[in-house]
């Protein structure tokens, strides 16, 4: 894909005749124009102006966080040490009400992975970050005692959190709201960690609004290492926008478009778990720690069964979203569930279900709620439980090590109790709290062979042997194994989802097979990666965005321009996404990661024994071919997988190239 040098345009403040929330230099439309910096070591709280040049290039969320962390972290920073920083960011559309616009990012060097870490969550936090007066928070240092951060109407204070330490996320959030005297449950949006984050389980999540999780990459452990128990945002400040009338027109367009999304009705009715049995039927449901692709119990745990059984008692949603994909579950037996703590999504269903050969949806619901209360990523935790079961079967983990708990495949008791042990880092839970990569290294005896991770991060619940671009995605993602870098292969086999404005044209459609791995298929991945990276910088929910959701990128671009007044082109939009990918790749290059780390576990390269893809391997030759094409399309070096000076300069990142050059990390 051609890229062009990014030129920062002259700043035009001629329209900015008023001050926005006290920001020096005038209004930065779409933004509050301020970043809050909190040093927990010395309690110093400062406010910094968000420069327009930075906002235009890096947008928000992923892009802005990558810029801040690349600039401010030294290579080889201890992710759980004093020098790591947590960047919490909304996007420029953070308080504009349309379906899917409810997310924010948490980024830091990952304690779970080997370099870059990022995670996203929905709920009600994103607009509250903006309305509290800021676009982003930078958390640095380590507090001597547990604290929580309160941000309200442009002011911030660090408060004592001793009484919340050792408490669940539910207790913490309710406690903070009580402390603030809130009378409305949406007055303050609170994000917190549970015991898992405090004890630095490497895949600890940050939970917000009781049931929303920034699960992946161990951002909760970073909070725990800093003794930051929670943050809360309150406020009603207005985000200045360039053209309110135009913005409203685009918002109305969103209402029309979102209804056209092929997934929307199913997401509402059955949640993300609605596809569970479909994936099994097509031989692509991760089962028994990725040993199989079909699960005979799939119909017992799928979204439709959660509804028809009565386990589902309600549906919930994020701020401004009409999709209602969130699940509310409630039951008194066989496990006591709490309707406040959320219901299982697809990833959780498969991770604790088929992946552990467990067809009991109640035990999955319980494991999910325990994860939410302790603050654990359900994907990583489920994969860890599956790993432990296989290690137990092979005699690598013994009954003595588990304290008598039998980790047999399909054991409901094992699934639920292991979550308890991991959340508290008790017994075998202490080892498993390290994640499969580190646990396997400690266990030895061949455990590395079935530790399902990439770059230290556990593999999500999608089977790459039936979706080749998903295999590439697992290998290439800078945050480690990820299923959300681009939409999966199924969508890219017909003209329906081609979009010329994105460079996706029918004449370049891949062969009509999920097993295709040629250049056209990889090009689709690259284009989609750019626009989804932009979604992560705008911080919007891809469930509501093309292709699975109905909102077009041209509409998002229109909203961005109406909010900011920037007049960006679609090419600018895609380049901003690509720029953020170059930043995170440069971050990992600086950490010493190379092409050798862009791989998938050996098990995923071997053929499945069952289902529609039985006998068809995803061999190293296939992955190598896809990687070669991907690096070429990005202008990266095929030998090392690193960005080149040319690719960085084309992305407007000369200073990043200079820094890598000084470290002798730029390919010749």
């Amino acid at each position, binding site marked *: 894909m051609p890229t062009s040098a990014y030129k920062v345009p002259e700043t035009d403040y001629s329209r900015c005749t008023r001050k926005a929330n006290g920001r020096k230099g005038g209004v930065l439309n779409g933004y509050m124009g301020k970043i809050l910096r909190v040093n927990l070591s010395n309690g110093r709280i400062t406010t910094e102006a968000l420069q327009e040049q930075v906002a235009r290039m890096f947008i928000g969320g992923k892009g802005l966080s990558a810029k801040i962390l690349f600039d401010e972290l030294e290579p080889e920073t201890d992710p759980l040490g004093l020098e790591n920083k947590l960047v919490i960011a909304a996007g420029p559309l953070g308080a504009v009400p349309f379906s899917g616009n409810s997310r924010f990012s948490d980024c830091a060097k990952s304690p779970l992975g080997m370099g870059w870490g990022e995670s996203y969550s929905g709920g009600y936090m994103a607009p509250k970050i903006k309305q509290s007066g800021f676009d982003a928070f930078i958390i640095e240092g380590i507090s001597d005692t547990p604290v929580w951060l309160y941000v309200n109407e442009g002011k911030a204070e660090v408060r004592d959190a001793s009484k919340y330490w050792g408490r669940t996320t539910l207790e913490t959030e309710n406690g903070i709201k009580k402390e603030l005297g809130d009378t409305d449950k949406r007055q303050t949006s609170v994000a917190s960690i549970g015991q898992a984050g405090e004890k630095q389980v490497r895949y600890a999540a940050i939970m917000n609004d009781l049931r929303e999780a920034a699960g992946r990459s161990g951002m909760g452990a970073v909070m725990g290492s800093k003794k930051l128990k929670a943050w809360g945002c309150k406020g009603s400040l207005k985000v200045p926008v360039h053209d309110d009338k135009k913005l409203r027109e685009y918002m109305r367009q969103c209402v029309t478009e979102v209804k056209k999304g092929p997934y929307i009705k199913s997401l509402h009715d059955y949640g993300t778990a609605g596809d569970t049995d479909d994936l099994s*039927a097509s031989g692509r449901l991760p089962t028994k720690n990725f040993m199989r692709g079909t699960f005979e119990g799939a119909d017992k745990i799928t979204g439709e069964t959660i509804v028809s059984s009565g386990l589902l008692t309600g549906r919930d949603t994020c701020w401004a979203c009409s999709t209602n994909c969130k699940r509310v579950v409630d039951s008194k037996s066989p496990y006591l569930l709490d309707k406040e703590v959320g219901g299982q*999504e697809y990833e959780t269903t498969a991770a604790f279900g088929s992946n552990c050969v467990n067809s009991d949806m109640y035990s999955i619901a319980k494991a999910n709620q325990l994860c939410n209360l302790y603050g654990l990523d359900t994907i990583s935790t489920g994969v860890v439980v599956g790993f432990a079961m296989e290690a137990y079967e092979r005699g690598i983990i013994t009954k003595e090590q588990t304290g008598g708990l039998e980790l047999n495949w399909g054991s409901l008791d094992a699934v639920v109790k292991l979550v308890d042990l991991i959340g508290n880092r008790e017994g075998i839970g202490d080892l498993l709290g390290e994640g499969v990569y580190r646990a396997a290294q400690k266990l030895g005896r061949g455990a590395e062979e079935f530790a399902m991770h990439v770059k230290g991060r556990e593999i999500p619940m999608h089977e790459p042997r039936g979706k080749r671009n998903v295999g590439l995605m697992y290998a290439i993602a800078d945050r480690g194994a990820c*299923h959300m870098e681009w939409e999966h292969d199924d969508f890219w086999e017909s003209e329906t989802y081609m979009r010329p404005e994105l460079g996706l044209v029918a004449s370049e459609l891949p062969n009509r097979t999920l097993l295709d791995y040629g250049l056209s298929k990889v090009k689709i991945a690259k284009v989609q990666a750019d626009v989804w990276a932009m979604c992560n910088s705008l911080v919007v929910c891809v469930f509501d965005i093309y292709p699975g959701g109905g909102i077009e990128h041209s509409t998002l671009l229109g909203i961005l321009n109406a909010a900011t007044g920037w007049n960006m082109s679609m090419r600018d939009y895609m380049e901003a996404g690509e720029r953020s990918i170059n930043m995170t790749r440069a971050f990992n290059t600086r950490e010493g990661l190379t092409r050798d780390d862009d791989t998938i576990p050996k098990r995923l390269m071997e053929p499945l024994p069952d289902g529609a893809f039985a006998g068809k391997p995803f061999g190293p030759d296939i992955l190598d071919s896809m990687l070669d094409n991907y690096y070429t399309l990005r202008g990266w070096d095929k030998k090392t997988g690193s960005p080149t000076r040319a690719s960085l300069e084309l992305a407007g990142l000369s200073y990043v190239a200079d820094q890598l050059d000084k470290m002798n990390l730029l390919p010749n």
Partner: protein
Amino acid sequence: MSAIKVILVYLGQAREVAGTKEEQLELPAPAKIEQAISRALEAHPKLSELKENLKLLVNGQWAVSNAELKDGDRITLLPPVGGG
């Protein structure tokens, strides 16, 4: 003329459109998958909106529309399944 009985299995969006998870069809033998799909489209016209994106499995294995059917076959209509 002999006939065969096959089962159509609707997944995901196809299930929503058809309003049923599966249904039995009787087709004159010999019959190909495309004949079964035509019958499904007649019974559920809105399925035509999905037709371009549907994948087909027969007895759990990928199949093409001109493949011949035999008595008792289960034909699965699978719309795109994405991430999330």
